Each structure stands twice: as C-alpha cells, then as structure tokens.
C-alpha cells in the first residue's frame, strides 16, 4: 500500500480504482517446479482486494510465468497488498501489508511453508538477521521479531513513529522513519538486546535504504534537491553528497559498483564512491500511465521497471539493458512494486 494514508486508501478502493478477481483465471500453466536463476516480481495488487501475486522471469529472460504462488499453492491466496519480500537461505518472506500476514515460501519451489500473523499490524518491510525475522508495522509503529525457522513470535520493539524500510549491517538494524515522501530519520536498533541505540537525523524525503559492504546508503529526495548518505555502520557517522539541481530522486538501488536512482522518467547511475550526483540520465522511459517506476530494480546490470498502469489493469514490466534498449516487455500482475534476484 503506497497511498497517502489508509483513509484515502479506503476511498480509493471503494470508488476509484479497479481491482481484479482471479475467479475466472484460465491460466492453465503448470508450476515450473524450480524458480531459481531468475527474478521474482512482486505484484502488490489492489488495495482492499486479495489479488497480490508473484511473477517469475529467468535470468536469460526466456522463461516467464505469472501467478506462481497461486499455481503452486491453490487454494491458498497470497493476500491483499504484497508490499515487500526478503530472503534467508531457502526461504522467502513475503510481507502482505493489508492482510496483516507474512507468507513464508520456499524461494525455489514456491511451496508455502507457513503464514505468520501474530502481532502484525499493517506490516511493511522485513529483514532476517541471525535467524530472526524483523518486520516493520505501520499501525503499531513497532518492529516485531520472529524466529525465522519456526515462525514463532519473539518480541516487539516499539519505535513510536513511522517505521518503513529495514536493513541490517554490522549486527544492527537500520529502520527508516519515513514514508510517502516525507520523513528524515533513521532509527538504529541493537539486535542483541532489541533496543534503540540511536536516531540519525538526515534529510527530509527519505525513500530508499540499502546495505552494501558494511555501509548503509540512504537516499532522500524532496522538492529542493536530493541527498545521498553513506553511513559507516561501525560508528554510525555518515558522509553525504547533495544536489539542488536534481530534485526528488527516488528508487536507489545498488548493483555491482554502481548506485542507480530515478527522477521523473529518467534512470541515472553513479559510482559507489561518486562525490556528486549525475544530472544526466542513462536513458528515459516512456510514461503513459502516470505510474512508471512504481517498481524499480537493477539486477546484473539490467534495469527492471514496473509500471502499475494506474492500478486499473495488469502492470507492465520492462527490462532494459544498461544502455536503455528494451530487452523484454512483460504483462505481470497488478501493481508490480519490486524485483528480487533469486539465484
């Protein structure tokens, strides 16, 4: 769910947006059996309708299948708004925001291994550290902790403010206190005792966070500019680069030694150790539906763009080469919001 807030979501789902039903789904595809060496595409579905789905595309872009959770697990339903996914060993944890569930599957066979429901209140993102699953919750404003093997509930870490994306580095958890384009803090949690050790105050408009080689990168974009932080996870001190000409950068994703981000319809890249933002797009994509880059990811140099098509129809995923030529265009499920390499 990426709406401004739940109220708007209700209005939207009730009156404005389309949803879809899988009742008449005549997709006769048989499960592939193995979903490795490829990319999992998470399609969040329509708010208020349990039509979230997962699509699979092989790394060579030759094999593609929609609705893989359903194909493997019918009659189980994935749920209402698949927000995010995290991996640990052979498991994938799919956070189903509006269903208050984390669906656990074998990442390769996609067989369901269980469903976590306890203490989940509008869950958003998750990460696994030391065999524990940490999940951020929008309503309770807490991080809830589960055993990543038994799925048993262990503890809640109250944060008391917006908790959104979560990554781990150096035995610590970094949680962004920002959603829907506003918020400027990152809460640092000591995972050994489940307590908040620090709150980092950065720039307003935090939208992305990623761990790379012991550092935590945070991107904030707003109407006056963009700022990229590199946090040293040993000291939690940070350095940053800033641009006032490139406003509102979004969708940071690190692939190889490059940091990718988007602005408007443009895709940009800079080196990991760059000292300035790039104002020159690698390439731009066509925007036909106002919802280009609803999902964005870079995997092995290829750029994956998820267009939600205004949530009134199935989404479109386009895979671009590093120079912007279209390698593949796919019709996926409703609202593709994320790409996860599954090797």
């Amino acid at each position, binding site marked *: 769910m990426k709406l*401004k807030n739940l*109220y*708007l979501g*209700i209005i939207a789902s009730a*009156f404005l*947006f389309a949803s879809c039903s899988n009742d008449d789904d005549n997709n006769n595809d048989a499960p592939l059996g193995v979903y490795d060496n490829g990319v999992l595409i998470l399609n969040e579905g329509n708010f208020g*309708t*349990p039509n979230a789905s997962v699509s699979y595309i092989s790394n060579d872009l030759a094999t593609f299948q929609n609705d893989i959770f359903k194909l493997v697990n019918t009659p189980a339903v994935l749920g209402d708004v698949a927000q995010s996914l995290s991996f640990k060993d052979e498991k994938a944890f799919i956070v189903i925001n509006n269903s208050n569930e984390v669906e656990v599957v074998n990442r390769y066979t996609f067989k369901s291994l269980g469903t976590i429901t306890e203490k989940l209140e509008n869950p958003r993102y998750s990460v696994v550290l030391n065999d524990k699953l940490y999940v951020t919750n929008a309503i309770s404003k807490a991080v809830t902790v589960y055993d990543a093997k038994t799925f048993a509930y262990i503890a809640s870490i109250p944060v008391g403010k917006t908790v959104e994306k979560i990554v781990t580095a150096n035995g610590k958890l970094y949680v962004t206190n920002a959603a829907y384009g506003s918020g400027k803090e990152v809460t640092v949690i000591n995972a050994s005792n489940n307590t908040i050790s620090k709150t980092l105050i950065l720039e307003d408009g935090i939208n992305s966070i990623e761990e790379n080689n012991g550092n935590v990168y945070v991107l904030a974009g707003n109407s006056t500019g963009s700022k990229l932080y590199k946090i040293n996870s040993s000291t939690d001190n940070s350095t940053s680069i800033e641009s006032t000409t490139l406003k509102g950068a979004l969708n940071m994703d690190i692939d190889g030694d490059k940091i990718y981000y988007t602005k408007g319809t443009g895709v940009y890249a800079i080196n990991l150790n760059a000292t300035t933002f790039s104002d020159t797009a690698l390439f731009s994509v066509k925007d036909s539906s*106002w919802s280009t880059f609803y999902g964005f990811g870079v995997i092995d140099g290829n750029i994956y763009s998820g267009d939600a098509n*205004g949530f009134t129809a199935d989404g479109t995923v386009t895979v671009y080469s590093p120079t912007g030529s279209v390698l593949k265009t796919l019709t996926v499920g409703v609202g593709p919001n994320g790409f996860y390499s599954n090797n």
Partner: protein
Amino acid sequence: MTIKKYFAFCFLFLCQLLAAQNDSINKLKEVIVSDTNLKKFSNTQSIQRLSDSIINKNPASLTSLLNYNTVIYFKENGLGMTSSPSFRGTTSQQTVVVWNGININSQLLGQTDFNTISTRGFNSIDVKAGGGSVVYGSGAIGGTIHLNNDLKFTDTFKNDFQVYYGEFNSISAIYGITAATKKWSFDASFSRNSSDNDFKFVGQELWNTNGQYYNNTLDAAVGFKINDKNSIKFYSEIYDGERHFSLTSPNATKTKYQDYNTRNLLTWSSAFNKFESNVRLAYITEHYNYFEDINRDGFTSGGVKSFIGKYDLDYSISSKMKISTILDYTKNDGLGSGIGDTSREIGGASLLWKHNLTEKWNYELSARKEVSDAYKSPVLFSAGSRYNFSDFYQLKFNFSRNYRIPTFNDLYWEGSGNPDLRPESSYQAEIGNEFHYKDFRLTVTAYGMKIKDMIRWLPTKGSNWTPVNTDKVTIYGAEALLGWKKSFDKHIFDFNGTYAYNVSLDDTTNKQLFYVPYHKLTGSLSYYYKKLAAYYQIMYTGEIFTTSDNNPKYILDAYNVSNIGVDYNFSKKNIFKVGVKAANLWNEKYEALPSRFMPGRNFTIYLNLNY
C-alpha cells in the same frame, strides 16, 4: 407557489408511475411537492417514480431500492458497505442525490454513498435520467435521484409502524406520523436499521466478518399555509450511522466508519399577480469518523458544513409562456484530517424558459453560469422539446451541457490535492419515445454523451497520488421502462420492468469503462387479491469488466438475483399486514465488486401497521 399535484390513491399503493403518465391519472389528494423544479422543467426527459409501496418492498437502503427497480448499476462493497452508482455508464460522482430539491452529494467525495440513505422516511423517490446541472448543479450528468417529503394539506391523522426482522439479526423499523389540516401539515418519522451482517458466502466455507452496521434517521417536514398566496415549509433530516467494513482477508485490520449528516431546509413560497417566488435556505452538514483500527482509539475525521441560499422567481407571460430565474449562493466550510480548514464559495444564476407552442408541442430552454473562488465553470445549458403525436405516442428530445466540480479532497488534500483542476464537463443528448395504450406504457430513450476532463487519482509522483484531469469518455446507449397493469375481476396484476444497454468508451483506449456493465435489467410482478399481496422481483446485471484494458481474466460474471414476498392484511379498515419475503431466492453466488460477495438466500418477516 408550489405546484399542486394530484395522486390517485390506488396508484399510491399499487404501482410505480412513470412521470409521463401523471397527466392522465385521477385527482384525489392535494399534495405540495417539495422539489418544484422537477415538475416544472423536466418535461423533456424521463422520470421514473418509485412510490411508497415500491419503497416498502425493498430493504431500507437506497442501494437496494434502486438496484431492483432502475437501470442504475451499483458498485457495492458487500451488503451495506460503501456503495456508489453508475447511471447511464457514468462515474460515481456523476449521479446526484437531491433531497427536497437540494443537491446533497458529499462535498468531500463528490458522490453519495447510497447505503447511507434510508429510504423509508420519504413519500416518494423519483429517478430522473440524464443531465440536470442547470437546476441541480454539480454531478447531474448520468441522472438525479430525488428524495421527496411531500406534504398533504387535507385533514389527516395517521400513524404508521413497520418492523422487519431477517436473518443475520437484521432489524429494520420505522415509525411515522402524519397530521394535517387544510392549513397545517406535519409529517415525521424515525427509522432504524441494523444487522450483524455475518452471512455465509454461497458455496464457500467463509463468512462475512466485521460487516455489522446500524443507522438511525429522523425525518420531519412541517408546512403552513399563511394564506392563499403564501406558504412556509420546513424540512429536516438527521442521519447517524456506523458501519464496520467487512474484511477481504481474514487477518486484516478491522476498521469502521461513522457518518453523521444533517439537512435542514426552510422554504417560503408566494404568488402575486403573474409571479411565483420561492425562497429556500438550506444548511447541510456532513461528517465522518474513520477508525483505521477498531482496537485503537485513534481515528481520522472530517466534514463540510454548507449554507445554500436559493431564490426562484417565475413569471408567467401567458398561460403558454413562463420564464424563471434562479439565483443561488453556496458556501462550503470544510474541516478535517487531510483537508485542513478550507472553504469555498459559489454563486450562480440560471435562466429558464418554457413555452407551449400548441397543446401538443412545447419546448424548454435554460442556461446557468456560476462563479467560484475554487474553479472555473463552463456555461451550462439545457434545451428540450416534447411533442404529443397522439394519446398513444409522445416524442421528447433534450440536449444539455453539464458538469461535475472537483471535491474538497480533490482540491485540498494535504500534499496531494490539485488546486488547478477543472470541472469535468459533458455534452449530452437524448431522444425519448413514450407509448401508452390502455394499461400499458413504454418509454424508450436513446442517449449519447461526451465527457471530458474526467478527474482521476493517479500515482503521479512515485508513491504520491494526486488527482488529474485526464480521460475523455464517449457514452451511448438506450434504456427502456415498461409498465403494465391489468385486473381480472378481483385479481390485479402489476408489472414493471427496466432495461439498459450501455457503452462507455475511454476515448484513448477505446475500451469499455470498468465497472460499467453493458446490460442491466430489472423486473417486478405484483399480484393483489383482496387483502393478499405478493410480488416477485428480478435483477440481472451483465458481466462487468474490472480493468481498464477489459482483460477477460478479470471479468465479474453476470448475475441474476430474485426476491419474492407475500403479505396479508388482517385489518378490515386499516392496515395490519403480516408478511414474509425471501431475498436471493435461487441462492445465486454473486459479487458486484471483486471479493465482495453478497448474501445467499435469506428470509425476512415483517409487520406493517397503519391506523
């Protein structure tokens, strides 16, 4: 001066009138109609009247009433949940609910939730298809639904009590009182509806959860005739309701929504020489509280208080020519989560002209221009003509321009609202054919419209949604209304049917708008024998696209739902009726929106007392 209208007593209780038929019916009771313009300036369009007997046959929500008796399709999020219409293929915000002549669509949402209108407090409900923005303002594109508290000025004292009890612990009760002399008239009612709404989904081991609701409505109308030329009327309604929103996945957070709406209207009508004037002052409030988690204290809320002043002046140049002006002023004050403290003002002037060229041929012209501090408004107009070829056949034509203004949420929602929005606007035309033969009547209307600047919320800035003027739509279709009444000895049969075929195309994609079925059909057959009454209703809705690309994978199946009811009046002089009805008789599995299943077969028993 209000128009005097006469009703046949039997018709009030037995059948559903089409407006075209009103000319010929018997004259029995004097009634002052609350919405005078509906009668004065809608002769070139089609009006379907739902009388109180029709109202009583259906559950107390406006959704159920209209779903089973009109061509309107409802996007109902499960029984009793939020519900919005698509009339003639238009969007939810393009149908207006008019309460005693005043547009009561939500200023926040631009539409009425048809499950927050309790029908039993009204004497009659009129459904007028087609454009009507000149008189009824924003949103009158697909059509207008008129809720009427008509006042009778004859010596009367009546009490009315009805109670319905059905499965899922559903209770609906209304008590009403009508008291009138030739000078005074008073009509008031209180109704309550509630349900646990925990029905089982047909063919599934799943139940509707967190769907319980209740609502209370108090209606009152008072009229006083000062003298032959002056009268004062006051109408008031208070609605208080709470609904839990039913879940679509079992562990989802339980939410609930409260509505509190009040409507007050003071009217002074007077006639002098060839003039008639109407001063109307209305104060309308709407308020909601939304609890995003019923186990927590927090909620968001908002509301709008609206003051409306209207002055109508009619001048009859001759018995054949009438000119009218309407001057109006509206001030809306909004306050709430997301919209902050905002207000807007609208001033408007309308000019209407009506001319009977001959006994058989008339035409009507009207135009409206408004000014507002919030948006730029086009000049609206309506032009229409009616020709009676014979008692058997009548032809109507109407061409109009109408609009729908941006809502408070569209304009002011913090961080998302778009102050540069233009109103949606339409050009539309219709041709109506009316046939009467003895007890048989048929209206066939073909229509077409072009709507531009449709307002849609889209994720324009990454995760941030904003409303934009985007799509253009072309709509065409036809609807038929059929009525037939026949008595054989003491057996009376009354049949009413409606059917619409509708195509609504997005101009860019040339695809049918989603949530607009091509076909909708309703039918009801009533049978009366002495003190026994029975009826059978059907409602058929054709398959519905749920995506903008009309993907066949996501089509909702067509559904055909039937209700049946029977009652017997045990009283000799008054009404002491006991009845039973079965809704969804054939236990059809259906959903009007994806994952929003409706109940299977269920029974209701009822008691009506009138003395």
